[in-house]
């Protein structure tokens, strides 16, 4: 399995966790941790990404692993597309008012 460089992974995780914490939360709530109160993206590779979700009580955590909707991907640009696709589908699944995803 191909992996992305540590620089790419680090940049994406920092962007998602610093700039889009609520998008992380919507994604984990729709994909396996409906009770999550906070979420952080902790890893990604060519096949998908992993989020850590904080449940109530605060010290309880779970990991949510989500395959990319498109299957295996190769480029950095595809990572962004896949995260947007996950966000949009999560938002629709939860019945949230539509919004453009990760900008």
């Amino acid at each position, binding site marked *: 399995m191909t992996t992305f460089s540590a620089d790419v992974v680090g940049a994406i995780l920092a962007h998602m966790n610093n700039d889009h914490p609520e998008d992380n939360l919507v994604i984990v709530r729709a994909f396996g941790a409906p009770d999550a109160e906070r979420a952080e993206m902790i890893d990604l590779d060519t096949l998908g990404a992993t989020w850590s979700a904080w449940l109530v009580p605060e010290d309880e955590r779970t990991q949510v692993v989500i395959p990319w909707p498109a299957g295996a991907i190769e480029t950095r640009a595809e990572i962004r597309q896949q995260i947007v696709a996950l966000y949009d*589908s999560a938002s629709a699944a939860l019945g949230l008012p539509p919004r453009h995803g990760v900008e």
Partner: protein
Amino acid sequence: MSNVIPFSKALRERTWSGHGESEGAGFMSDLMSGRGSRDDYIALVAQHYFIYEAIESAAEKMTDDPTAAPFISPKLTRLPAIREDLRFLIGDDWLEQITPLNTTARYVARINEVGEGWPGGFIAHHYTRYLGDLSGGQVIRTLMQRQFGFETNGVGFYLFADIAKPREFKETYRAQLDAVGWSDAERDRVIDEVIEAYRFNTALFIDLANAKAAAAAAA
């Protein structure tokens, strides 16, 4: 100053909160992460039938309304696909087999009410459903296909065959929202109605979860 922020932007900002209610999210979260059953999916499609039946009936009444008309497009129409999905999923007598849940009945009553003469309210419900489905439907369809072995039968609802470029369609829709000459007060009313539509969706998931639990207890 009034109307400095484009309406579509104000709408997005004021109606969106990642800290929204998580209650009820479990039903959809199970379905999205492979822990739901085919029956769960069917239960959801059945409720979609009643909701879209109301929205698309309201759209027919609104076709001559100058405010609402630009938003109404046959490319969005979902009802024929939902009917075909239900026929495939539960059989020719599908209509006799399905019933609206309590929240669905209230949701439908509200859509009917705004459809009688409030274009802004109609647009609020139209926007909430169609733009969400158009944005997220593709991935939901793929997930349901993988989980339940569907090809296109059963997931036609998520297939907008007449919209080749969803992104462009959504941009046009948002531009149309910005072009409506609503007063600030009317903008606020429309935004409140979008929030109301979201509340109906959340309550519907709770109903679906409760109905599932009741069916499991009875089995």
